[in-house]
């Protein structure tokens, strides 16, 4: 016998993704395998598979999808869109998943870096890419008026 439903119906995971900015096109995804061939990361790392990530979403495996590190191996190059026969935007779908992962409190090098860079923009108006071997001999240009940026970002979050 069917047990009585005690919780209100939660929408399937893919619907949550489809209503997150960038995730809309998951509705048209079949899924197939076509988007994996243009992906530069998939070509180098057999552990990264775009259709597998999308498959997890379609199967409703929310927690596993949002905690997985592969969301952050994606380089946001959006090459994958060219492969899709359904005109979906798989790269943007991954962006939507990263948004949800951040909101769900995901941890690891990817989420930590995203949060740190987001905080830099909020605090200084810009990102400092301290990636060069030798430090700059010149003083960096002063940051954008960070109070204005902070005001805008906070107003957006509160809306």
């Amino acid at each position, binding site marked *: 016998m069917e047990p009585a439903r005690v919780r209100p119906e939660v929408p399937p995971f893919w619907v949550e993704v489809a209503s997150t900015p960038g995730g809309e096109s998951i509705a048209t995804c079949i899924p197939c395998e076509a988007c994996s061939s243009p992906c530069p990361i998939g070509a180098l790392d057999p552990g990264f598979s775009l259709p597998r990530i999308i498959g997890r979403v379609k199967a409703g495996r929310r927690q596993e999808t949002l905690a997985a590190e592969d969301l952050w191996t994606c380089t946001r190059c959006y090459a994958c869109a060219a492969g899709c026969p359904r005109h979906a935007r798989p790269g943007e779908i991954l962006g939507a998943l990263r948004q949800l992962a951040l909101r769900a409190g995901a941890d690891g090098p990817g989420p930590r870096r995203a949060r740190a860079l987001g905080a830099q923009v909020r605090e200084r108006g810009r990102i400092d890419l301290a990636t*060069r071997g030798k430090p700059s001999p010149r003083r960096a240009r002063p940051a954008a008026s960070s109070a204005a940026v902070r005001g805008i970002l906070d107003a957006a979050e509160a809306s």
Partner: protein
Amino acid sequence: MRYAYFPGCAASGSCRELDDATRGVAEDLGIELVDLAGAACCGAGILQETNPEGALAVNAHTLSLAQTEGLDVLTVCGTCQLHLARAARSLEDPKTRARVNRVLEKAGQDPYRGGVRVRHLLQVLLQDVGERKLAAHVRRPLDGLAVGAFYGCNLLRDPGADAYDTPEDPTSIERLVALLGGNAVSFRARTACCGFHALAVREDLVVRLSAAGLAEARDAGATMVATPCPLCHLVLDARQRKAAKASGQTLNVPILHLSQLVGLALGIDPGRLGVDRHVVPVTPVIEKLEDREVVKA
């Protein structure tokens, strides 16, 4: 010619030479760059994930600053170009603009009214300056230089890229190099991602990716590579030794920012273009050019 200049975070910080070179080129060509005091980061795709509505509002703010000046925006970064142009495109929808303007209003900022265009230096050089004028300003032709054209990915995803190029099979850098008197080298990986955004998570993959691209450029005959994106530069130049090591080959491919390449052809002093700030020495390129007389205008 006047533009609201948006150097972006990389050219304002670790790639200061790109900013220096761009200002030098603009001055030489009579382009006035108006600084947007108060413009923030484009979000680089990251703010778009940590605070998507905030990223759109911050970019709307930047566009409204340009609007106040009555100017279009000029970028020198593939990623800035992509995110600002995408924001500008979404903000053409009146409903989205009204929603974002409510955020700006709450934050005490002026609203954005729409209509500002966002264009990369590459497009401005080819379309606004124009081939004739550009060619007339060349005082140190790049002849004999085999320049690999590396677009990277983000610039080509700009929703307006098809106004000056064919994103699937681009030729604009090659056309520019030819105008400067150089020998443009095309290769398949020129539209590939440099891997920048995966650096924090999988640097091992990123260096393999860039090693493959650089080896392809070299095998196609390029003795140097020019890129319109400072993030590509940070991978291709600053991590080239790691790329060489990971792939077990010597690379030694000098990487020039597009602005530096143009600056060299215009006869600007290499020191002013900041070529000494790179990790992979640009000296072989400079030496080749220094043999050549700078043609006085």
